[in-house]
């Protein structure tokens, strides 16, 4: 009996010392944000950070407005202060000003902020002002867990300048309670002669969205609509257009550039593949909610997340919003790859190939770097490493408004979403599988990351919005964009754009 007692005491003591739960109890008491997991051991865990002493030092951060990315930045800054004794000053800036707020002092040779948040497609313009991520962090187990795609998105030609804190890609979100509903399937078949299923192509997407537009199909007394999309000019609409274009214009048999022909730097943006996508998009104005052509990302999240539409596509946020506890459609939504197309443009042979094509769009997302001229680089990288440590990352993933999305291989475990967020196992599986499949695809499109990227994307936003507003036909609008792109290439310098674009093409062609 005495022996048994001794053994039991020894086992309990060992568990107390070596189990992560021992840390979990200790740290989650002080920091309720991580109560679901407690501290997770790692190079930048709560335990490790508590041993650092940054008393008397100040870290200055420029981040996005609250809540998206701004809220987790401030929260982790507060935690970091408590653990290390540092003083952290967080400045919140609207999304549209993040670029210029850092770029103006960068160009003037100043570093008013040690840590600057922005978007991953800023990398080409920002990289000369950012410090590369030190080897110590590159070799950490947390960094080894980051997906290959997001290592690529955060790096420039093999050197990482942006610390991974978020992972973004565009995918399809749909109302599972409608698409998988046998009664709806029967009704749809009877009325249209087609199968109601997760749309494989944009044409199917349009047919279903039109059918489910402007009537109360979920019986809540309110009308529902076909699709919620980002169509507001200058409000990330160019990314939505690229999502619709990849199926028609990213041909796995014609490597060498999706946006430009890398050899000649002639824009592909007005080829028949892109024109077909824009024609579909103009058609989509007929099945969005009233005012839908003025929807920004926030409206899209609210519309689909609030149960107003059958479909949506773009960043994770609308899906996460729909799956939050307070959502009227929790566990009624599904995730799937972006629709494809029954034909794809071959820019080499200048003809359509009549075969099914689908391409994931690994879109740009939140990114953060440390200013090269910062005097507290060590502390800045420690903060970023702490920001995305295991416990913080898992807790952040569960809060839709934080804007933190999966970018680690371990994020694709459906149990995270089932156990800590209460997701239906089938939905959690479809979500993680959709994201995982994008990682495995060999026909991906990455964001354009060339000098003066905003000039290119702004031209796309202006051209496509003119087409959506009926001011120009899709062909005329994209011809105008192509002309503008040629002018920008000429202004920036063909060689500079070509060299930068070559890095992106390597990623698309699976050579990096």
């Amino acid at each position, binding site marked *: 009996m005495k022996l048994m007692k001794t053994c039991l005491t020894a086992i309990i003591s060992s568990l107390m010392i070596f189990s992560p739960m021992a840390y979990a109890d200790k740290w989650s008491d002080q920091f309720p944000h991580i109560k679901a997991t407690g501290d997770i051991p790692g190079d930048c865990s709560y335990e490790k950070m508590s041993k650092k002493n940054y008393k008397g030092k100040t870290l200055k951060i420029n981040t996005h407005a609250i809540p998206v990315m701004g809220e987790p930045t401030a929260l982790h800054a507060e935690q970091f202060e408590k653990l290390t004794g540092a003083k952290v000053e967080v400045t919140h800036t609207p999304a*549209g000003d993040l670029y210029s707020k850092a770029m103006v002092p960068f160009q003037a040779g100043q570093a008013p902020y040690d840590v600057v948040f922005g978007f991953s497609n800023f990398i080409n313009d920002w990289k000369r002002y950012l410090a590369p991520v030190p080897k110590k962090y590159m070799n950490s187990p947390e960094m080894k867990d980051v997906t290959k795609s997001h290592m690529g998105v955060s790096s420039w030609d093999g050197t990482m300048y942006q610390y991974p804190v978020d992972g973004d890609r565009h995918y399809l979100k749909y109302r599972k309670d409608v698409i998988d509903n046998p009664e709806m399937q029967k009704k749809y078949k009877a009325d249209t002669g087609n199968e109601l299923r997760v749309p494989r192509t944009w044409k199917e997407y349009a047919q279903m969205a039109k059918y489910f537009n402007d009537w109360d199909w979920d019986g809540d007394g309110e009308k529902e609509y076909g699709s919620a999309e980002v169509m*507001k000019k200058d409000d990330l609409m160019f990314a939505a257009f690229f999502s619709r274009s990849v199926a028609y214009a990213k041909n796995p048999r014609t490597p060498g550039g999706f946006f430009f022909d890398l050899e000649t730097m002639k824009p592909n943006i007005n080829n028949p593949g892109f024109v077909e996508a824009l024609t579909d998009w103009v058609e989509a104005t007929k099945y969005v909610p009233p005012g839908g052509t*003025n929807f920004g990302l926030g409206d899209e999240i609210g519309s689909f997340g609030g149960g107003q539409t059958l479909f949506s596509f773009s960043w994770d946020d609308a899906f996460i919003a729909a799956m939050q506890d307070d959502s009227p459609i929790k566990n009624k939504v599904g995730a799937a790859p972006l629709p494809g197309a029954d034909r794809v443009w071959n820019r080499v042979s200048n003809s359509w190939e009549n075969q099914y094509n689908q391409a994931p769009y690994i879109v740009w997302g939140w990114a953060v770097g440390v200013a090269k001229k910062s005097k507290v680089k060590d502390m800045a990288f420690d903060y970023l490493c702490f920001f995305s440590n295991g416990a913080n990352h898992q807790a952040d993933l569960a809060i839709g408004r934080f804007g933190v999305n999966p970018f680690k291989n371990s994020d694709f475990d459906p149990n995270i979403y089932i156990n800590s967020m209460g997701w239906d196992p089938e939905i959690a599986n479809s979500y993680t599988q959709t994201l995982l499949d994008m990682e495995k695809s060999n026909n991906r499109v990455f964001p354009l990351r060339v000098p003066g990227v905003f000039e290119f994307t702004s031209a796309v936003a*202006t051209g496509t919005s003119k087409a959506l507003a009926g*001011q120009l036909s899709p062909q005329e609008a994209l011809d105008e964009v192509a002309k503008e792109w040629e002018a920008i290439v000429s202004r920036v310098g063909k060689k500079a754009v070509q060299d930068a674009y070559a890095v992106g093409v390597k990623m698309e062609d699976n050579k990096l």
Partner: protein
Amino acid sequence: MNFKHKYFFLFPGLFVLIGILIFPIIFVVRLSLSGWNSYNPGLDYIGLENYIRLFTDDPRFWESFFRLSFLSVTTVILQYVIGFALAHMVWKDIKFKRFFRVLFLVPMMTTPVIMTVIWRTFFHESLGPVNDLLSVFGVAPKWLTDPVIAKFTVIIVEVWQWTPFMFLLLLAGLLSLPKEPFLAAAIDGASPVRKFIYVTFPLMAPISIGAIIIRLIEASKIMDTVYVLTSGGPGTSTETSSFYIFIKGLREFQMGYAASMSFTYLIIMIISLTIIAKVLTKVLLKE
């Protein structure tokens, strides 16, 4: 006595003038002669290249300028008419005069960006209360997504926000008018309409010109309303000069080119507002 030292007292004011007015303008001119952008930082010298591009290869700037002219002239005329009517109303002895005077000023005291967000919510075509109410009559205007209606939505918001400013200036003008001409008109038995046309309006002409010019200067900088309400859309249908310069300068980071547009815009505004002031003076102060 030698009072030359008195000029030293001018220096503080002169420094401020140079610092906040002259230097920024000179810097904009210098910037406009450079190719400063995101990939080419610094004040290099490219001559008149930006101006040549602006005058020969940028129809969007001129479209946005003519759109701005339409929006600012329309809003200022409406603000003047409504502002004058309201000022005239509370100028007279009516009940709750003080209450109305304060009430009419409230829109001007609110923050334009916040109010535009609220207006955008009102005009939201699927979630906003305006179309909810109008649906009773079977209509649902596309306030923000129709290229023509969106212009009028911008006008509505601008008129709501800035009519109080016109009201304030005109009320101050009305309160400062001499009483004798009105007494003479009353003795002659002039009707209220004739009194307004032949006495009030002519006496108010100098103040009206000042108020219209001040509002035209402000209205020509319209930016926040467009930014929040429509982002210049749908298409480019509500894009104004200042919004377009903002896009080129702070979104696309074409600082040199944006500076050339700003300077050109400044020159055009100085010339056109001078002409407008002269025309108004000639028309309203003809006698």
